[in-house]
């Protein structure tokens, strides 16, 4: 066992120096692995970005109240009386004007996408003034809409993705067109994919009478939620479900992000198999072009264990360089890249940015290392198994 380590170090150094001598085949394996990692990290960053948008949407001290049995705001309905009882419930935070509870209306309108020109569903939300106390929203351009007027403000995500949603544009509501008077940001959350207006003007436009679909309530604290939920669900005058906003969005994002993650993993898995063969081929070439050198080293007394490990180390170095290159490529190409996609729960578009996180970069590089190790394994074993006397004869 003595000097095993120094044998490995010496052989590995020697192997790595030879990578340069086989630039062509090394580069092929390297690019293959870099490509796989870039795709893996790129695709998974879509899922992460989507998750991030959904998480940023929720706050643990905010409750969403819908009719019992409704899975989304679209399927829910609440009367004015019901929303009053909810707003009066104990546990809701208050400011000078009263309880921080906004009764809201949620409809979908068709707006063409900038990228394709085809219509897509965009949520149009009718709100009450309390909405601005429930959510953290900043007007980024223009001004807030005036209550009672046919005006809207647009989330910056929606403004970026859809035609006519920029400041000064108009949106179709029934047979009229309402004016965009401002844009707003909401910390990267899902609200940025929505259009907001006064619930009072949206109700008649959609013949909703005096009904709403959901109440958003800011609670005194995150801990007040269980008590608040119990009070509402046991109130005989109400037939509602109460969910924490964070849970609501997390549930919504599960389907989408697991679809994206699954798809990404599948694609990267298939590409990974290709890359393994690339690495395998490169390492076989590397080993067979050095048959005599490896045999010479073993004749001098280098052990077959260190030979195996040094060939694996060479493959690993190649793979890690490829992995880092691929991860870097994904980071510079995709991080922050903005897009919109369908939210299956609300059947409307969610705008979000690709999110190349540190953990994704690490995952990508680990994946590259695995490809390298698998690809290097058989060539390494072959190198160590070659009968020395036979290998020395081949020249």
């Amino acid at each position, binding site marked *: 066992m*003595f*000097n095993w380590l*120094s*044998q490995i170090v*010496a052989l590995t150094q*020697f192997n790595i*120096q*030879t990578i340069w*001598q086989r630039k062509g085949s090394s580069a092929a394996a390297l690019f293959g692995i870099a490509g796989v990692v870039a795709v893996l990290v790129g695709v998974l960053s879509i899922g992460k970005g989507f998750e991030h948008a959904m998480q940023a949407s929720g706050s643990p001290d905010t409750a969403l109240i819908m009719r019992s049995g409704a899975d989304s705001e679209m399927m829910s309905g609440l009367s004015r009386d019901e929303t009053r009882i909810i707003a009066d419930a104990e546990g809701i935070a208050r400011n000078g004007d009263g309880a921080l509870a906004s009764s809201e209306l949620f409809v979908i309108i068709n707006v063409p996408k900038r990228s394709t020109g085809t219509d897509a569903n965009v949520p149009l939300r009718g709100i009450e003034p309390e909405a601005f106390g429930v959510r953290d929203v900043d007007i980024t351009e223009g001004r807030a809409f005036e209550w009672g007027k046919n005006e809207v403000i647009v989330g910056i995500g929606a403004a970026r993705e859809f035609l006519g949603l920029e400041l000064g544009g108009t949106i179709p509501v029934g047979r009229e067109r309402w004016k965009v008077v401002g844009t707003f940001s909401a910390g990267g959350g899902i609200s940025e994919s929505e259009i907001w207006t006064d619930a009072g003007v949206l109700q008649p436009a959609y013949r909703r009478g005096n009904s709403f679909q959901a109440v958003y309530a800011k609670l005194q604290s995150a801990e007040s939620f269980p008590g608040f939920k119990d009070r509402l669900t046991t109130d005989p005058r109400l037939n509602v479900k109460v969910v924490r906003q964070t849970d609501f969005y997390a549930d919504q994002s599960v389907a989408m992000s697991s679809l994206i993650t699954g798809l990404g993993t599948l694609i990267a898995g298939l590409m990974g198999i290709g890359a393994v063969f690339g690495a395998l081929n490169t390492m076989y070439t590397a080993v067979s072009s050095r048959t*005599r*050198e490896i045999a*010479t*080293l*073993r*004749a*001098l*007394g*280098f*052990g*077959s*264990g260190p030979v195996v490990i040094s060939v694996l180390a060479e493959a690993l170095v190649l793979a890690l360089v490829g992995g880092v290159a691929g991860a870097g490529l994904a980071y510079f190409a995709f991080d922050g890249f903005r897009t919109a996609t369908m939210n299956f729960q609300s059947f409307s578009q969610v705008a979000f940015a690709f999110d190349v996180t540190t953990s994704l970069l690490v995952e990508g590089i680990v994946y590259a290392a695995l490809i390298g190790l698998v690809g290097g394994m058989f060539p390494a074993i072959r190198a160590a198994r070659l*009968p*020395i*006397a036979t290998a*020395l*004869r081949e*020249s």
Partner: protein
Amino acid sequence: MSRQAALDQVEATSSVSSETLVRVEGCTKHFRRGSEEIRVLEKLDLEVPKGEFLALMGPSGSGKSTLLNLMGGLDRPTTGSITVAGERIDQLSRPKLAAWRARHVGFVFQFYNLLPVLNAERNIELPLLLTHLSRAERKKHVETALEIVGLSHRQKHYPGTLSGGEQQRVGIARGIVTDPTLLLADEPTGDLDRKTGDEILDLLQALNRDHGKTIIMVTHDPHAAARSTRTLYVNEGRLRAEPVE
């Protein structure tokens, strides 16, 4: 063998001791090639005394390299025993054999077998990486070996920039740098022109005569064999003292 060569041998024999260093007893080596069995060595016996410079000659394919490889622990005999410096090496496991080679044998190859990515100095240092020597001690050993082969001025050169003769000197330096019990050379001049080959033979002869190295050299050049202290001929699996005409 010429008269002069014979005289040279007699003269040189004086440094050989009576102590046996290598003992090959009843050694048989068969190879399988598909269903065919190739019988290369048949019940071969050989004793090499310490301090000898033995030349092995014989027709191509007669089994000279096979015999050398067996004595160097690169391969194991089908039957029979091989003892080097009192140790039975035919029964050692592969890892033990590797460690044994590192300690006891220096190899010199026909095509030098230097690593092209390492310079002369680092090629020579390779076998020392298998010892406990410190970096400084390794450096000293490498310098001594370079001096012995007369290549001190080429220590930083890469194999690609050295002539064939110089590369073989590096090969020999690598072979002797650990001061091995036994130096084995398989056609060390086979790839060199006559004049360069002679210089390499001068060097091997000096190593044997002045440094007491036991050397076994395979060659099919009678001129090279003449430099040895004894020449044996491999033929039909056995050793003979005279060539078969």
